[in-house]
């Protein structure tokens, strides 16, 4: 198949029937592999890695904190992409996928904030600090809340999809602006990006880098969270499509009855 044909094949999933059939076929695979990855990653990380020489066993919360934070940001990116697809090509599945993803993003943001607080209490001596990273996650949480509230507030589904899509686009710009604004506003306490740095792995960079002993189980956890996210989005999008169908059927019933 040529690339163009493959790209066309992707758009076939804009058909709700085709989307439901395929997603139901692949969902069990995603559920099982994601749960397996998370179980293996957590057990490996919790019981078969040494304690950090400075942080003791508290360091192990990284196996929940980092994947959740990663998914919280990527969930917004996915919503941005599906919103754009909705605005440009008007595929309902796309708009419903954005709607389905938002609550997952809220939960991921909350997990990242809470695990961070639980780790921060013994390590930094405080549950919360107005550090740029923490603050921007809190702001991201507020953006998610506004997005979901707008979906809930509007009755007409197409209007709601349009308005939330525009809000998602505008919100993305302002979320990035806020990220840089809070960077400017306060000095950081949170460590910088320290998981995926190639220079640190090869040893040319002596700054703090998560050691490889911790990195491999963390990678398994991240893969597990990505798969879990895909499974949840597919599952919830299916639910949204069915809810939409029930509404349509009931409306038809009322008209004919």
């Amino acid at each position, binding site marked *: 198949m040529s690339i163009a044909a493959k790209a066309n094949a992707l758009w076939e999933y804009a058909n709700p029937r085709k989307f439901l059939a395929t997603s139901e076929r692949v969902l069990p695979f995603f559920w099982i592999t994601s749960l397996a990855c998370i179980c293996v990653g957590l057990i490996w990380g919790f019981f078969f890695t040494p304690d950090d020489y400075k942080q003791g066993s508290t360091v192990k919360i990284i196996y929940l904190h980092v994947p959740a934070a990663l998914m919280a940001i990527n969930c917004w990116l996915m919503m941005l992409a599906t919103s754009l697809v909705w605005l440009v090509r008007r595929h309902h599945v796309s708009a419903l996928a954005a709607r389905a993803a938002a609550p997952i993003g809220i939960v991921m943001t909350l997990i990242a904030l809470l695990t961070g607080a639980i780790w921060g209490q013994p390590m930094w001596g405080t549950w919360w600090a107005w550090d740029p990273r923490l603050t921007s996650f809190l702001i991201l949480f*507020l953006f998610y809340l506004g997005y979901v*509230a707008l979906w809930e507030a509007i009755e007409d589904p197409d*209007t709601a999809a349009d*308005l939330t899509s*525009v*809000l998602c686009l505008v919100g993305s710009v302002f979320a990035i*602006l806020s990220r840089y604004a809070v960077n400017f506003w306060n000095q950081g306490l949170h460590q910088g990006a320290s998981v995926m740095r190639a220079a640190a792995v090869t040893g040319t960079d002596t700054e703090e880098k998560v050691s490889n002993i911790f990195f491999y189980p963390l990678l398994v956890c991240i893969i597990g969270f990505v798969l879990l996210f895909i499974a949840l989005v597919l599952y919830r999008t299916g639910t949204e499509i069915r809810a939409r169908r029930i509404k349509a059927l009931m409306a038809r019933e009322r008209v004919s009855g």
Partner: protein
Amino acid sequence: MIALLLRDLKLAFRAGGGFGLGLAFFLIVTVMVPFAVGPQSSLLSTIAPGVLWLGALLACLLSLDRLLALDWEDGSLDLLATAPLPLESVVTIKALAHWLTTGLPLVLAAPFLGVLLNLPVPGFFWLVISLLIGTPAMSVIGTFGAALTVGLKRGGLLLSLLVLPLYVPTLIFGAEVARRGATEMEVQTPLLMLAGITAATIALLPFASAAVLRINLR
């Protein structure tokens, strides 16, 4: 365009137009702050720039739900949408009228309220400058929020939930200018960032506001 601006200004100044409510709200918030944190003048002068910025922001937010809702109710918004004037300029004029009736009075009132909070002398100039540059952005962003929620029956609370996160960058840089000005530090970087945000929102956001308004009027 000028006719529309004059009409909006007239409506705002007339009795029941709500002009002055934002100002009164700003005054009350500022007066309440010493009751909440205590009357020590050293503490008040430290927090004065931030409190005045926050008060101005809340006063601005308070008047947003009237921005388009009244025109929506009596149907003149539909007329404006079908008029030869592009909807982008309609929302820009609406934002300008909102700034002239809400933002500008807040800027002019801020120094007097600064006296109440014992704002340090060098802070007055930078407070006015930062508000003067920052409030237009708040009006434009607020117009976007008002356009998003215009068709909703109880859009007021939702409007605050949607608009406040969008105000974060403006608030951070604006309050930073005022704070640095009050302590006689270098203000150039946050001032330029604030001006950049205002310029960009004025240039780009009316297109988004007009787009959501079209969806709502469909």
